């Protein structure tokens, strides 16, 4: 009887572990960022000509401190980046008075041409810059693309999301930042 109980317990525990593994979601979404709770690193990156009139040729993060930001890293070869681009544009259209959305193109070979095609395809009106040498990506501890950082008005990084973002998910984060 005792043996049956112990065997049952072991099988139940292994089953629970298996179910936990299945339900815990995609592990790459959970890679923690060392920047959470710390000031988002400063950078100054060249912008695409589309945004010169509104932001100038270079986007200097320091010049925009004081308002919440969404910093999104993308690449033209990245499938999920195509998925999330319309969501980012909609968020920008809705919150541009309160939140700055920044796109940063990184890890792209034919960066300029591919970047322009990507921006034009989705009509991205929020500022998009190029991180040609991946320096800013390294500074932000980037693992891949897309990755998105949510920065509070005081400059501290509140959250990092690896993988495509959605409008609903960003809305929730923005409302928390604006509260």
């Amino acid at each position: 009887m005792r043996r049956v109980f112990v065997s049952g317990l072991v099988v139940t525990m292994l089953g629970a572990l298996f179910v936990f593994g299945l339900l815990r979601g995609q592990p790459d979404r959970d890679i923690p960022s060392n920047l959470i709770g710390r000031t988002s690193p400063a950078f100054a990156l060249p912008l695409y000509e589309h945004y010169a009139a509104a932001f100038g040729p270079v986007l200097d993060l320091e010049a925009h401190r004081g308002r919440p930001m969404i910093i999104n890293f993308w690449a033209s070869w990245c499938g999920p980046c195509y998925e999330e681009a319309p969501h980012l544009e909609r968020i920008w259209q809705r919150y541009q008075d309160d939140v700055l959305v920044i796109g940063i193109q990184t890890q792209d070979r034919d960066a300029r041409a591919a970047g322009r095609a990507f921006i034009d395809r989705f009509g991205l009106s929020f500022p998009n810059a190029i991180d040609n040498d991946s320096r800013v990506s390294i500074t932000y501890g980037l693992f891949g693309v897309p990755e998105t950082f949510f920065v509070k008005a005081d400059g501290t990084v509140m959250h990092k999301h690896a993988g495509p973002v959605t409008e609903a998910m960003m809305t929730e984060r923005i409302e928390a930042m604006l509260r």
Partner: protein
Amino acid sequence: MTRLRTSRSLAPLAWLALLALLALAPAAAAQEQELDPRVFEIANELRCPTCVSESVGQSNAAIAREMRTLIQEQLETGANRAEVLVFFQERYGDWILLDPPKRGVNLALWLLPVAAALGGLTMLGVLLRRWRAAGAAHVEADPADVARVRAVLGATDVGGPAEEDDEPWRT
């Protein structure tokens, strides 16, 4: 004929492409050769963020190449190995180190196999003691059963135990 003509017209292009490759390859190699050997020593301690099971020293990914350049720049400004590792650790956490410090979850991962081995050995010891104790225990046999066994053994003529045997069930 058309195909031949096309391949002939493409031949100079192919030669140009080959020459361009030959010209670019040593340039890229030279760029890597200019790096301080210490760069690769440090880079081999770092995990490439965008690769699978490759160090920054081994990977040819753009981000890994840039990280090597960054290490070179830091060494040139006088940073030592530990300071360079801390620079990357501050950005990527312990994950970036191929030999992460043994603390927190990492420590648990190190201790778990040792604990499992100790648990297994303890369990084996307990079971062995139990088996040995069970083997040495005196078993009271029913005299009627003993008589039946003796009768069978006697009938088959295999030689039974002595009358005064302390352990009549053993043959």
